[in-house]
């Protein structure tokens, strides 16, 4: 629970700063605008978290989410059956990737790096130029306006809850985390590490597919480059959320909060009317500041 304190505090501080800069954001519409794009990022972050949880890192997340967006925008509206098969095929491909990495003991960084080319190429083949449309039901879900609380916030809570149940509470999640913690012990207990890693990648694939679909639901069109920055955003989100790079120690709730924080950081900068030259630099600076705060808090904790 203490691990969650810092991500929560960073998020609250950032929200306060945004409200202070832009009091109008303190409304239903304002909140919706602020957090709208957080939903796909949160899903991608959870996907990345599952990969990091089993000791790997996925450098193809952005390309994969882009590919899903292209499939969702170009194929799903016109041919739902084919679109669904392709999306399921993408998840199966992810599972196969996990199995390959474990079976041949390959470095995940390199394999996913190579896969980023593959996903990118496939996306260009499916949707050579930006376009397509979102399936009506998807837009309806993503742009729904439930009473009192904006959709983006409800969706984030649901994502966090589902991810927490699957990863932290279920027996399935325990097995996957065990793989990240002590793969030798897992195989000694008679379980197939290949199957487990495949399951982990499949789970990540499910969340990543959801991310791509959610993104199209919001933007209503696809593009082979639409989500390339998700690779870095998702990794940063996991870390901001208190996840560790090794040893299978992650927090799904923290990851969602990390994703929300990152989304908000973008809005915060545009409210500051920063010169465009410095916007990207400021994003880096915010990341560094949050990480510095995390260190200070942890050290204070140790002293206490």
């Amino acid at each position, binding site marked *: 629970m203490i691990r969650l304190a810092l991500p929560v505090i960073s998020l609250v501080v950032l929200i306060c700063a945004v409200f202070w800069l832009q009091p109008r954001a303190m409304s239903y519409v304002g909140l919706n605008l602020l957090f709208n794009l957080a939903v796909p990022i949160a899903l991608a972050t959870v996907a990345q978290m599952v990969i990091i949880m089993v000791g790997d890192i996925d450098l193809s997340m952005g390309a994969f989410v882009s590919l899903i967006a292209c499939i969702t925008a170009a194929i799903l509206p016109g041919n739902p059956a084919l679109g669904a098969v392709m999306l399921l095929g993408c998840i199966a491909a992810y599972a196969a990737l996990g199995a390959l990495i474990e079976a041949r*003991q390959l470095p995940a960084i*390199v*394999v996913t790096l190579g896969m980023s080319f593959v996903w990118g*190429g496939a996306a260009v083949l499916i949707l050579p130029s930006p376009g397509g449309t979102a399936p009506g039901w998807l837009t309806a879900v993503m742009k729904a306006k439930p009473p009192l609380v904006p959709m983006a916030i409800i969706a984030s809570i649901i994502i966090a809850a589902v991810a927490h149940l699957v990863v932290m509470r279920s027996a399935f999640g325990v097995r996957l985390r065990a793989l990240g913690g002590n793969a030798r012990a897992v195989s000694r207990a008679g379980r197939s590490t290949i199957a487990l890693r495949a399951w982990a990648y499949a789970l990540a694939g499910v969340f990543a597919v959801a991310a791509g679909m959610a993104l199209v639901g919001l933007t209503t069109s696809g593009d082979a480059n639409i989500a390339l920055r998700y690779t870095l955003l998702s990794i940063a989100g996991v870390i901001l959320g208190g996840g560790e790079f090794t040893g299978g120690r992650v927090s799904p709730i923290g990851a969602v909060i990390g994703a929300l924080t990152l989304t908000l950081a973008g809005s915060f900068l545009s409210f500051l009317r920063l010169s465009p030259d*410095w916007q990207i630099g400021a994003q*880096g600076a915010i*990341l560094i500041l949050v990480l510095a705060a995390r260190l200070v808090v942890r050290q204070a904790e140790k002293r206490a």
Partner: protein
Amino acid sequence: MMNIYKAPWFWAWVAAFAAFGATWSLSAGGGGGMALLVAALTFGSFSVLTGLGQMLVITMGPGNTDLSIPATMTLAATLSLKLMNGAGGVWIIAGLLTALLIGVGVGIVNFALIRLLRIPPIIATLSASFLYQSLAIWSNRGLRIKPPQALADFTTGRAVLGIPNLAWLALAITVVFWVILNRARFGRRISAIGQNPRAARLAGVPVASVTAATYVTCAVMAGLTGFLLACFSGGAALNMGAEFLLMSIAVTVIGGSSIAGGNSNVPGIWGGALFMYLIVSMLNSYGLGAGVRLLSTGVIIIAIVAIASGRKARL
């Protein structure tokens, strides 16, 4: 020599030769071969220079990867070209020094973030690279300054044996890196840290200074590459380094260095760099579209890694 196929760099070279053969035969053989070789050596040199630095960092173990290489290249190229402003003579020295010093500065900042904030190097270098990039954007202001003529001539020239000057330079630097990693105490210490940083510290390895020196070396190599690339291509561009992030990691790993750390491989860097260039030109000469080209590049990289790593698959 009997076991040469067991050398970690062997497969990278085999792949490079195969790609060369395939492309050459497509371009109807003959004189096209030389042109292809020159192009591969020239563009490969840039990958080699960034790859050598990245390899040093990757050797330090899991999580150690420098993601700020592209931003460092852009920053070094922008500022050094601005300083030289097309002038020759002593300004060339000043420009080169600027590029290298920017590398030193970036390396120190990267290391300071990793050390002081105790954050994973990937996150530290990623966050910092945003700052470097902003700095480059701010100093560049969309101007494109031409490099001094002497430098442009040097980087595009082929003075000795018809082999590009850049390739000779990269080869010389490669030899230095080989000596560092295989003969020097510094390389031994990097490898120790890569296998087990805690044990290395307890065995008296000065972990902090070795890590700092490694990140500085990597950034200096990025700065130098940025400087050379800008001179070669007639000016600095904001996205000039973009492809070298993935390229530097890819050539390191295709070249047979262990991503788990502790094990590095210098000759493989060349094999990996040539292969990466040749594979793209091979797909180009098949006249394939961008989508298929990307897709095949990815599949081939993974296939090579899967085959090459199969040798060292654990029980």
